[in-house]
């Protein structure tokens, strides 16, 4: 009796263990991809409601239009479009024969439903200018604009404007994008383990790829497994050891090493964002503009690019990537490294150098909190920033938060300085991060200013043409810079690395980013 119980226990556990050893052996048709650090922490594949989306979203959902690297727009689910001369009406002709993954047809009604679904979400600004959507016929829609929106095509090409199946979207409610995500894209969502892994399988019916792809039919690869590897250096090791085939976003300090590897190829694309340090203008001592200005002068952008990024990428001097025309501001407003001047400004603000190298005002030490998210690259950059701030006599205490909750911390207004980055290649990002309507997050600087809001409104809603829009946004950008609300640090490049023994990747990459349109062209090396 005694012995038999024991044996049963042992065999029992052995069976359990064996059963759990699921062997998802990687086949040649299964390509694994690691997200870049900035894409981590997406909680749902819901383009309408989510505030973070990753690359896999662009494979599940198609958009009406696509944007190429040269900023030109290409038809996708909209085969053509027309804008009235006053910019108050847009008519889109839709592709015929497109179906969602659930079999329902993609048509004018789907578009109408979809645009309406943005109401009340964080992403509503994308469709704010659209007053109403008319269904002209099965495959034609008309957007009746409340005001001209020169940025409409850009918005429509964004990942946040992937088109979901209306049936599924209505049915699943909050679960849409979590338990299932139904789009028209070249790949279907098979499983989504939050924070871990997303598995996409080929949509065999796909025939409606855009002209940014060589292959407009179903993708070559059967399955894409997207992994969230929180530590970018682990992701790097995975690529090097063959654990993953494609790494979106290689940390720049690993570029040199990867270049030396025979089987690793690197694609460098122009960056679409910057790393920067927002300053909370409501938290003393940063309510004093002199302190903010001094803080900006403490950061040695060139030094950072040279030393920690090995000269890859460029220093950031203002809030926008330099390829945008709105980045050409009055040079005197650009933020430049000048520690001597920073010292003078701080003296002027009443912060004098103390005995232990930290400035003081009366009994108070110039000690501030510096928030960042727990990704390798950001924590690293933050430590460099900390050391550079120490040079001007500012002690920064680093606090690291989980990347998906740090936004809540900003909303709690507990921060003073933070190191973060964004990915967006349009000047309306200024509205996103500095509008008084979004205090805490995204307006991490907590900046509310009548003149600022006026310039913002003008730029966002009163530009009838592209040229006007550029002028308006430049003015807004300059005003933002004059208030010293943040410190620009670095403009990274997009670095994509892949294992050339395993897969081939289209070269050159078309599109502004490496996403859906390029994934359908990826092939396995036989």
């Amino acid at each position, binding site marked *: 009796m*005694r012995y038999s*119980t*024991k044996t049963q*226990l042992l065999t029992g*556990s*052995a069976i*359990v*263990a064996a059963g*759990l*050893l*699921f*062997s*998802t*052996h*990687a086949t040649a048709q299964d390509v*694994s991809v690691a997200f870049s650090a900035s894409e981590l922490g997406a*909680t*749902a594949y819901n383009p309408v409601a989510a505030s973070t989306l990753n690359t896999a979203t662009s494979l599940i959902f198609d958009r009406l239009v696509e944007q190429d690297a040269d900023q030109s727009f290409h038809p996708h689910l909209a085969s053509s479009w027309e804008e009235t001369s006053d910019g108050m009406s847009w008519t889109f002709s839709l592709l015929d024969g497109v179906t969602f993954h659930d079999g329902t047809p993609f048509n004018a009604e789907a578009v109408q439903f979809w645009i309406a679904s943005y109401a009340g979400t964080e992403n509503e600004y994308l469709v704010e200018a659209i007053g109403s959507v008319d269904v002209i016929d099965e495959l034609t829609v008309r957007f009746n604009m409340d005001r001209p929106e020169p940025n409409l095509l850009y918005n429509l090409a964004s990942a946040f404007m992937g088109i979901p199946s209306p049936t599924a979207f209505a049915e699943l409610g*909050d*679960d849409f994008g*979590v*338990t299932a995500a139904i789009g028209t894209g070249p790949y279907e969502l098979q499983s989504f*383990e*939050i*924070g*871990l892994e997303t598995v996409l399988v080929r949509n065999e019916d796909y025939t409606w790829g855009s002209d940014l792809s060589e292959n407009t039919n179903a993708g070559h690869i059967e399955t894409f*497994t997207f*992994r969230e*590897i*929180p*530590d970018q250096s*682990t992701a790097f*090791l*995975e690529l*090097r*050891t*063959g*654990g993953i085939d494609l790494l979106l976003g290689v940390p720049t300090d690993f570029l040199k090493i990867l270049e030396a590897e025979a089987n690793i190829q690197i694609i460098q694309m122009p960056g679409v964002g910057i790393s920067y340090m927002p300053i909370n203008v409501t938290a003393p001592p940063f309510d004093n503009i002199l302190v903010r200005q001094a803080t900006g002068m403490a950061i040695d952008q060139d030094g950072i690019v040279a030393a920690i990024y090995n000269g890859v990428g460029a220093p950031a001097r203002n809030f926008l990537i330099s390829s945008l025309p709105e980045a050409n501001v009055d040079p005197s407003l650009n933020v430049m490294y000048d520690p001597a001047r920073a010292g003078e400004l701080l003296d002027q603000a009443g912060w004098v150098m103390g005995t232990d190298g930290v400035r003081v005002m009366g009994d108070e030490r110039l000690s501030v909190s510096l928030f960042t998210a*727990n990704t390798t690259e950001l924590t690293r950059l933050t430590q460099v920033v900390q050391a550079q701030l120490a040079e001007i006599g500012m002690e920064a205490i680093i606090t690291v*938060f*989980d990347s*998906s*909750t740090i936004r*809540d911390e900003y*909303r*709690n207004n507990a921060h003073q300085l933070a190191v973060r980055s964004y990915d967006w290649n349009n000047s309306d990002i200024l509205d996103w991060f500095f509008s008084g309507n979004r205090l805490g997050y995204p307006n991490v600087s907590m900046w509310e200013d009548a003149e600022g809001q006026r310039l913002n409104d003008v730029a966002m809603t009163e530009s009838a043409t592209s040229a006007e829009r550029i002028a308006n946004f430049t003015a807004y950008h300059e005003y933002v810079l004059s208030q010293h609300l943040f410190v620009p640090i670095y403009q990274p490049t997009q670095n994509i690395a892949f294992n050339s023994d395993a897969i081939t990747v289209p070269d050159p990459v078309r599109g502004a980013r490496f996403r859906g349109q390029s994934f359908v062209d990826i092939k396995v090396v036989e």
Partner: protein
Amino acid sequence: MILRYTFMRLLMLIPVSFSISVVIFMIVYLLPGDPIDNLLRVGSSAEDRAELVARYGLDRNLIVQYFVWIGNMFRGEFGEAIVLRRPVADLVAQNLPYSLTLGGLAFLFSSTVGMALGTISAVVRHPVLDRFMRGFILLGSTVPGFWLALLLILFFSVNLGWFPVSGAGGWTSLVLPVLTIGFGGVALVARVTRVALLDAQREDFVTLLHAKGLSSGTILLRHLMPHALLPVVTILALRIGWILGGAVTVEFVFGRPGLGSLLIRALGQRDYPVVQACLLMLALAVMLGTLIGDVAQASMDPRIREKKT
């Protein structure tokens, strides 16, 4: 007899599980700030708030709240994850198999190899072997798990390329984590087995067993091993909690999903419903572990069976 003993042990678990559930329940109240805010995402609407209050009876007194909460737990309703926005039960169900696989294998590995090594070192009394064992046991019980994990990655994944660096795809990704957790476990089990066997060998009855004419092998297997197993079983049962929860460092280094990494992530994200559920599962595992250990011990030792409690 053994059934009665098991039943008694189960009865004794009631006050323990009650106190542990109270502690876990209290977590959101012990945290700074309004407990309701701790259970809601920042910026939730007043309706969301009202709904939560109604669902958990948060407007009633603490005792009522506790019973509402524990009732939900018993039904497997762990609530909704704040950050991850899905039922906590789903998250637990998603992560638990990973923990069980890793924990189960590490458990098997450390118990079999540990007992084998312990037995060998107790039976074969060779000075060189003895020194080797002591060194191994010392290293196994002192080297930090995460460091060992890093070194194993450096050697086996980066240099030799035998096993994947991270993740949970297929059996190869289990080897290094199992080795890392198992290393400490093997050392512990080997030490306990060795000491227990040496102690058992010194018992008077062993002389008499030899005097009966039994061979050393028979004595070892039929008489000494059961004695040595008693403390080993206790230690192993205690290890169940350690292996499931203590695997958190290993899960972290190897980027593996599991209960431990879910808990860590939830703690980082202040996702307290998830934290509560994870802790409850771990506490359950710990209690089950001690229960299994006690029952196993009682099934081997008639003296324990007869103790009234």
